[in-house]
């Protein structure tokens, strides 16, 4: 019994940090509507700075002073980021904000290594809380008890801040309707900046407080951000109490999950999240989101199929690409194959995201399922390669059919979160079901048959499949189904009013996208000769998002260009510099701020300007509802 109590208390202690970070994210989202991916990065910087300060400043005062000082310093960095970067993109679609903050995260990951080195850093124990307390023969670190008390105290302080101060009233008002608050003469700029500062302060404090418990390392940002996403989604975005309850719930699930279901402990949390999202899509304490004021209209060039000249040009490019083996070496061909595979991956997400308006944050799940499908078929069933290539993606298709059914019940940020959760479930299964998937060691020795084994042959195979897939999806975009899908993206209300079953259309699109991603994954397994849980991990999902956004989410061809540029740049950077993430992150941030329409979107704009054929807009045709933020 005592053991369970101790386990419970450990869970509560973990909840404190999680709550701090999650409440920060929640507050920022509530007011600025930005889902701050960089929140984990701020958490991590908080931990690193606190580590350095506690090493320098001695004594109890030095330690606790360092923790607070570190959080304040990071809050200052947050203010800088908000003023320099975020202020420029408040009006951008939420995906771009997510992307920009993701770019920031990448940069921070490298910067942290640059400054503090790649090794884990073990921090000082907290003065006054070094020992442990005996509880019926079980030890409880006294620092844990401190954290258990701290959580509710912070909750109380935040409550007072929001209920009893003028600033808090403004924040709550802005959370409900920020346009109204602006109309009442409140200086939004500073309100947003201060809210961001408070949110970042909480994240950094959460990180700093972790140092006596955990080593500080440069991957702690991704781990926490996923947990924090789960917490705010379960609790309800924008709700502090929700963040607290959910943080406790998630931490306890983690603490007891390991005891009860050691095999599926990771899944447990995500399963709970999936259930909450399906039963109460806006979270336990959240409120149903008011319909977002979408104003895509003016920014979008009408989509049209390629003209015959453009088709010829594309064909010419394809032919040129096919001549690569004539002059390039094996390494270049392998890179070429990888790029072709990522084109498949990117266009599959593009179909779901740009055409269907469903931004999946877990698209790698279906890519990875395709890869595992190949590994099972080739290694275990010993089927020939052609059969494997045809059947392997079906695993992606089945995964997409099951998860997609639930995911399309939601939309927007919540759709993104649910797809992320599903991807994590699949990842956990691949990671933990060692007897079948090999766990972390993956499945090795998945090599192509002789006819496709040489780099040039495999390159042609990958290129051919990529071309076919791209063409097929393009046809689908301009098919009646594609129009129906775009219709559900633009207005579900109108779609239903003209007889369109929006969810079925979206589900179908999800399955198509998942199957296509599975094709990419299948080829990827053969290219690498192995399959690992990373093939369905978050970073791969984010890669796909970046590729689509980089190319231009509002364009038809963007994904192809985005995939080529991103993947080539990625591979080249990794080979050229140790700071590839820093450069890549900076590049992403630059793209979002300077070219928010992506590469293809920008080219289209330039072409239009040159033709001087931008449609004349008479003042009479001005938009009736001025673009809301």
């Amino acid at each position, binding site marked *: 019994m005592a053991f369970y109590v101790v386990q419970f208390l450990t869970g509560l202690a973990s909840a404190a940090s999680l709550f701090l970070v999650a409440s920060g994210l929640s507050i920022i989202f509530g007011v600025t509507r930005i889902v701050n991916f960089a929140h984990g990065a701020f958490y991590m910087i908080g931990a690193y700075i606190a580590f350095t300060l506690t090493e320098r400043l001695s004594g109890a005062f030095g330690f606790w002073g360092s923790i607070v000082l570190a959080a304040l310093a990071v809050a200052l960095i947050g203010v800088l980021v908000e003023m320099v970067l975020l202020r420029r993109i408040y009006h951008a679609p939420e995906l771009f904000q997510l992307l920009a903050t993701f770019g920031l995260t990448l940069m921070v990951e490298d910067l942290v290594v640059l400054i503090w080195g790649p090794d884990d850093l073990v921090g000082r124990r907290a003065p006054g809380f070094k020992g442990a307390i005996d509880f019926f023969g079980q030890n409880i670190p006294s620092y844990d008890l401190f954290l258990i008390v701290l959580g509710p105290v912070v909750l109380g302080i935040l409550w007072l801040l929001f209920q009893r101060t003028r600033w808090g009233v403004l924040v709550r008002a802005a959370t409900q309707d920020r346009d109204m608050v602006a109309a009442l003469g409140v200086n939004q700029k500073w309100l947003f900046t201060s809210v961001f500062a408070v949110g970042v302060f909480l994240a950094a404090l959460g990180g700093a407080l972790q140092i006596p418990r955990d080593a500080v390392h440069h991957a702690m940002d991704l781990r926490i951000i996923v947990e924090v996403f789960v917490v705010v989604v379960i609790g309800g975005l924008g709700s502090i109490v929700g963040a607290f309850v959910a943080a406790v719930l998630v931490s306890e699930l983690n603490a007891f999950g390991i005891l009860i279901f050691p095999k599926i402990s990771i899944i447990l949390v995500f399963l709970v999240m999936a259930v909450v999202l399906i039963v109460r899509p806006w979270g336990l304490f959240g409120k149903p989101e008011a319909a977002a004021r*979408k*104003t*895509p*209209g*003016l920014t*979008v*060039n*009408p989509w*049209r*199929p390629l003209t015959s000249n453009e088709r010829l040009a594309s064909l010419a490019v394809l032919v040129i690409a096919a001549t690569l083996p004539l002059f390039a070496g094996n390494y270049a061909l392998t890179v070429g194959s990888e790029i072709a595979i990522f084109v498949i991956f990117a266009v599959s997400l593009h179909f779901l995201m740009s055409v269907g308006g469903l931004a999946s944050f877990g698209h790698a799940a279906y890519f990875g399922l395709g890869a595992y499908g190949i590994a099972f078929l080739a290694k275990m069933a010993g089927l020939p390669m052609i059969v494997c290539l045809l059947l392997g993606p079906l695993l992606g298709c089945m995964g997409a059919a099951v998860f997609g059914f639930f995911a399309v019940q939601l939309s927007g940020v919540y759709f993104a979160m649910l797809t992320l959760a599903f991807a994590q479930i699949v990842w956990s299964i691949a990671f933990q079901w060692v007897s079948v998937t090999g766990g972390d060691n993956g499945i090795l020795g998945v090599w192509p048959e002789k006819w496709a084994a040489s780099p040039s042959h495999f390159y042609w195979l990958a290129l051919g499949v990529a071309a076919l897939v791209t063409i097929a999806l393009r*046809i*689908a975009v*301009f*098919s*009646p*189904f*594609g*129009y*129906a899908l*775009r*219709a559900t*993206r*633009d*207005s579900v*209300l*109108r*779609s*239903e*009013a*003209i*007889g*369109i*079953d929006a969810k079925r*259309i979206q589900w*179908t699109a999800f399955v198509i996208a998942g199957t296509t991603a599975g094709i990419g994954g299948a080829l990827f397994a053969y290219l690498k000769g192995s399959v690992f849980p990373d093939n369905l991990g978050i970073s791969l999902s984010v890669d796909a998002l970046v590729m689509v956004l980089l190319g231009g989410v*509002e364009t038809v061809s963007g994904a192809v260009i985005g995939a080529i540029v991103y993947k080539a740049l990625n591979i080249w950077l990794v080979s050229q510099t140790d700071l590839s993430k820093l450069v890549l992150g900076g590049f992403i941030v630059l793209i979002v701020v300077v070219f928010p329409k992506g590469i293809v979107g920008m080219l289209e704009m330039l072409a239009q300007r040159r033709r001087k054929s931008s*449609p004349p*807009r008479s003042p*009479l*045709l*001005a*938009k*009736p509802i001025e673009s809301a933020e």
Partner: protein
Amino acid sequence: MSVAAPLLAVEGLTKSYGGIHAVRGVSFSLRAGEILALIGPNGAGKSTCFDMLNGQNKPDSGHVRLLGEETTGKKPREIWRMGVGRTFQITATFATMTVRENVQVALISHGKQLFNLFGSAPKFDRGEAGRLLELVGMGGYADRPCGELAYGDLKRLELAVALANQPKLLLMDEPTAGMAPRERVDLMRLTASIAREKSIGVLFTEHDMDVVFEHADRIIVLNRGTLIAEGSPAEVRGNPQVQAVYLGEGLVYDARHREGAST
């Protein structure tokens, strides 16, 4: 159309939220080619009533029948398939698509080609889409992105979309809200002429009494969830109960109408 089964028959429609009776025992009917206005002060239950007709809201009790067939409890898209087109108080269109594509989507749905993955949508029923746009006076705007349209044009586009499935009944929720006075008259004249020509029944809610009295064949008046009057514009205008409900607005209307008539 036979006299026996009216186009739309509403019987004893009732809906309450908690203790509030939003709609209580409302019954009325609508003939093909008839233009019926549903009016009433704010909070009278117009929107609730309307949402129950188009399937967005389920009544607690009562029936809605279209040509004798029950529509109660059906989803909006099923009711559309039975031949009911609708426009929204705040326009709902596909903003990133062109005007023609907006109509084509409706035609694709009407032709049950929604899951056709290989056909060419840009060529789908292009002629019919063009005809519908001409009908509502939007022929010159076919290639415009819908997001660029002025509000009045969006309303006309909605009308074209609503006509795409050759409806028997049009449900229009405040069709002229947010429009300039001249646009209002134009839109309602257009609607009325199309309805008469194609023998489509039209039910609309409206706050603008000029629009109501000029274009409706018949008017039904809701107040606090119950039907308090029904009849021709002249009858309803003279109804003391209606005047009381509108706090004398009818008299104000009379004065304004006379002024307006002389210009």
